[in-house]
């Protein structure tokens, strides 16, 4: 194989794995949108909050230490060497479930039967609240998250691919980040698990029922509020996974909440109501972005990655507004 072709493969592979990371965030949006028709603007911040909490527990930070120190003049910062990673993840998950419950109690419960735009505004408020709350609880400095996932380029893969090249040409092998591979595996497990849960359990059936028709779901005895707590908990779990992956990749910092914006074009492409759509949409955006950067980028001075996804989504909206897998909206007149 020629080096140019191997380069192409490398770009596509990296694009696919970058795409999976987008899909992880988009997945959280889809889950909530399907079950309640709410576009949850806070999904990105939930990922940030989960990652912050995880690092905090792992390193033994005292929550709200700045606040406590400011009020009582103490010098608190850490209470010990921190929890084991597994324990920290479990506690973080418990906190995300608690968060889901509180959101239902404090916000959603009072907004039942309101217009979608009202609920959307509420989630914007929630996003800002959660961002501030996370800051207050764990501090605003950039943190390193290490849950033991492998990172760095895979030397083995470089060696393997180096032998694929045509004799005599100069080629140093493909670069693949092991963290990306780990993230991809986790994402695949997550998606398969979620699909199995939704298809083969009674709770999953109730979730699908609510997503399909609220009124009918209530009439067979499904409590919408219970379902919402469950859905937001699952979205919290997905946020935690996304937070771990993104946090391991680029550190836990407040710009993490902006990955939510990257999920938007993914959703437009895949359709707001489709889990496979979120995956495929993420992959298309990831690959498209990397290919455009590599082949079109040099012609226009680079930085295509920053806007390519949005242009693609815009073009897509004109052709297929419901997305690749979304439910077709037919307005009856």
């Amino acid at each position: 194989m020629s080096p140019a072709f191997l380069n192409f493969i490398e770009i596509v592979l990296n694009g696919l794995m970058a795409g999976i990371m987008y899909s992880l965030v988009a997945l959280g949006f889809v889950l909530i949108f399907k079950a309640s028709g709410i576009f949850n603007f806070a999904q990105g911040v939930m990922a940030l909050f989960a990652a912050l909490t995880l690092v905090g527990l792992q390193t033994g930070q005292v929550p709200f230490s700045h606040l406590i120190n400011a009020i009582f003049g103490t010098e608190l910062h850490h209470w010990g060497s921190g929890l084991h990673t597994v324990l920290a993840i479990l506690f973080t998950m418990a906190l995300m479930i608690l968060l889901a419950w509180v959101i239902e109690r404090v916000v959603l419960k009072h907004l039942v039967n309101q217009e979608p735009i009202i609920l959307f505004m509420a989630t914007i408020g929630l996003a800002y609240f959660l961002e501030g709350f996370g800051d207050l609880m764990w501090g605003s400095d950039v943190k390193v998250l290490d849950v033991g996932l492998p990172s760095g380029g895979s030397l083995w893969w470089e060696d393997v691919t180096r032998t694929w090249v045509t004799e005599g040409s100069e080629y140093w092998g493909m670069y693949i980040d092991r963290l990306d591979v780990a993230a991809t595996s986790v994402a695949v497990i997550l998606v398969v698990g979620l699909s199995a849960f939704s298809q083969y359990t009674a709770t999953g059936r109730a979730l699908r029922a609510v997503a399909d028709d609220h009124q009918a779901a209530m009439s067979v005895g499904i409590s919408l509020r219970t379902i919402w707590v469950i859905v937001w908990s699952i979205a919290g779990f997905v946020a935690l996974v996304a937070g771990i992956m993104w946090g391991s990749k680029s550190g836990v910092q407040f710009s993490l909440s902006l990955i939510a914006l990257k999920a938007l074009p993914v959703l437009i492409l895949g359709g707001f109501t489709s889990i496979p759509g979120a995956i495929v949409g993420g992959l298309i955006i990831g690959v498209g972005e990397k290919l455009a950067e590599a082949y079109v980028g040099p012609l226009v001075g680079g930085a295509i990655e920053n806007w390519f996804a949005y242009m693609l989504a815009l073009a897509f909206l004109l052709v297929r507004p419901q997305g690749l897998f979304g439910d077709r909206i037919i307005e009856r007149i």
Partner: protein
Amino acid sequence: MNMHYSSAGGAHRDNLAKGETLLQVDNISLSFGGVKAIQDVSFDIKKGEIRAIIGPNGAGKTSMLNVINGFYHPQEGTITFRGKERRRMRPHVAAQQGISRTFQNIALFKGMSVLDNIMTGRMTLQKRNMLWHALWHGPAQMEELEHRAAVEKIIDFLEIEAIRKTPSGRLPYGLQKRVELGRALAAEPALLLLDEPMAGMNLEEKEDMSRFILDVNHQFGTTIALIEHDMGVVMDLSDRVMVLDYGRKIGDGTPDDVRKNRDVIDAYLGVSHDD
């Protein structure tokens, strides 16, 4: 055909004898803004009977069903179900207490298979809550099998074996109505509310549906309240008929009584009352 419900549920058994009052509606008034949908209506439903609610379009029939299953909360009046008076009940609680229903415009889960649709009907009979089901798969699966067996009996009963895996949204209208009845039956309800179960059906489908309704009533002793426009069907099926017009009750009694009632005849023929 003899069908026994599984032991999984039994949630909605009560010790009322046939003919005792199952549901008592007293002085219900319901309005939306300035529109008075129901005005001071009282009636009862006795255990084991088929009770029809009829009336011209806009008379408040569906509103009355919505009040009974908790979709609407009346401004005035009380509802007593199985001896317990209730306040502002939510629909899923009504379902848990044994009130199942179908809808005028069919509210099936269109993306789900017929089997899954009817399985959702078993929701109120699950012994353990949803979170438990989500976390412990093994025992939940055992319970799931019991419910599955009960659902298969309902599928048999309604003669819809051939379509059990079909997404319900793809079925013809008449079959969708039948599946919706199946979902309501799956809950083993103490009171089954049917909102125009035969609307839009052809004669053959109407005959099938009538037979199913009678069978449900006879074999399982299920109390049924139904809204229907087809007078022939109503008079044949029901034990007692209540007539609503402009939100008010204008007649109540056996089909024969109602047929002779002057107000009812006027309401249906549109005759003015000043003669």
